[in-house]
């Protein structure tokens, strides 16, 4: 007598409990999906034109907007261009070129890279990613390196 009653009760508990779990899931799933931002257009850039080569003085640098990421474009004293990711590999700050020290420096936590982007001292764990620099019709053009 007691057995069928108990199993009916546990059956109902499973149905109600399962229903409740399903309901919670049906609330959480859309909320969690809503909070995950969709991928934006404009992040996938292949190359960016800086401007005429002659306007870029040797021994200076510029931060170039490459899609949504900053790229550090440096012109060495001998006229050679170097382009590196400007995002510090430590904690996401934006690095800068120091012409007096001839290095690349992150002011946030004193991370130092050499002019090839190798992490030299301080907390950065990895080198800065390189980009290609080409001169196209007299303009400086930064491009993703072909992997």
């Amino acid at each position: 007598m007691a057995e069928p009653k108990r199993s009916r009760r546990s059956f109902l508990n499973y149905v109600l409990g399962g229903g409740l779990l399903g309901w919670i899931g049906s609330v959480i799933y859309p909320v969690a999906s809503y909070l995950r931002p969709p991928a934006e257009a404009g992040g996938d850039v292949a190359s960016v034109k800086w401007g005429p080569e002659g306007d870029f003085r040797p021994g200076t640098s510029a931060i170039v907007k490459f899609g949504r990421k900053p790229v550090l474009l440096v012109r060495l004293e001998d006229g050679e261009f170097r382009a590196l990711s400007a995002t510090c590999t430590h904690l996401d700050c934006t690095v800068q070129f120091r012409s007096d020290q001839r290095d690349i420096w992150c002011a946030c936590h004193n991370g130092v890279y050499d002019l090839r982007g190798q992490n030299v001292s301080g907390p950065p764990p990895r080198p800065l990613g390189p980009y290609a620099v080409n001169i196209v019709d007299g303009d400086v053009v930064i491009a993703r390196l072909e992997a």
Partner: protein
Amino acid sequence: MSETSKRGVFGWLDDRFHLAPLVDYMRHKEVPVHRHSIWYYMGGVTLFLFIVQLFTGILLLMYYRPGAESAYESVRFLMNKVPFGWLFRAVHSWGANIFILFAFVHMFSTFFTRAYGRPRELTWVTGFVLLALGMGFGFSGYLLPWNELAFFATKVGTDIAGVLPVVGDAIKVFLRGGEDVTGATLIRFYAFHIALIPAIFTGILGVHLLFVQRQGMHEPEFVSRQPEGEKRTMAFFPNFLLRDLFVWLIVLNVLLFLAVFYPWELGLEADPFASAPQGIKPEWYFMFMFQTLKLIPAHVLGLEGEMLGVLVFMLAGLAWMLVPFWEIRTRATGRLKPMAVIGFLALGFIVIMTIVGYLV
């Protein structure tokens, strides 16, 4: 109740809501008086500063325009053109810092007087959650003026969340509203700062205060050992409450003094495509964690140093929140009490790391 209480507005309400027992309860509430009574005011001051934040925050909302293009300009307008705008912003910024300061003082005074023990375990736990939410208030509010320092501090802060194993990246994207700190992050932080955190905070604060009112003030050990005849107390209403209000008035004056003579700088507008300036620092109450992370080597035992540091801080925070449940009890004979040692170590660590962070 008596005949008189049925008359007037109170009588009308009492008829319907049966308020007399509550008033009676408040009337009989006593606050212990002893040489450490001053710590009883710290929670009240924190509460008062929260009210100041609520009030000035609502005022700032009248002019603030969230968004990467408008936020900085609207704060500048508020500070330069709106009558007393500079004052309310300065009070809000200073108030936030002093609020956190008093929350810490309140917490450590509760810890050292061991007020967290039975039956006040949940008062301690809710208080810890309120402090964590208060720091969330600070972190989210810091970005809202969209200036350079806050921009990079937010990049660093959210990137640190990203080092957590498994969930780190999802948390980072959730906080930032994308892969990078952008206008989307600003809008999210705005939502956290003015809606999400206040709603949760207010609810938990209500519970925290209810617990305090229901259980009354904690009597430190040296007072409870005294014979009943020697114990001194003070009526909560009106004696203690009036003292509370007096302390609040002093705090308000200090706050106004700071706001008027040391107004809060706005700094330069954030530029996501500029190099980070020198002197990127988190707000002082994050400094001890930040400084510790800086001192941990990049790799420890094959693990990323930052991840290890963040995990250790999370575990330490959890242990601190659960102190009432693992408290080490000893006979009161020894001079050196283990919980006091733990408390002084924690406090010393926080103070030293904060100072080192500002010196280096």
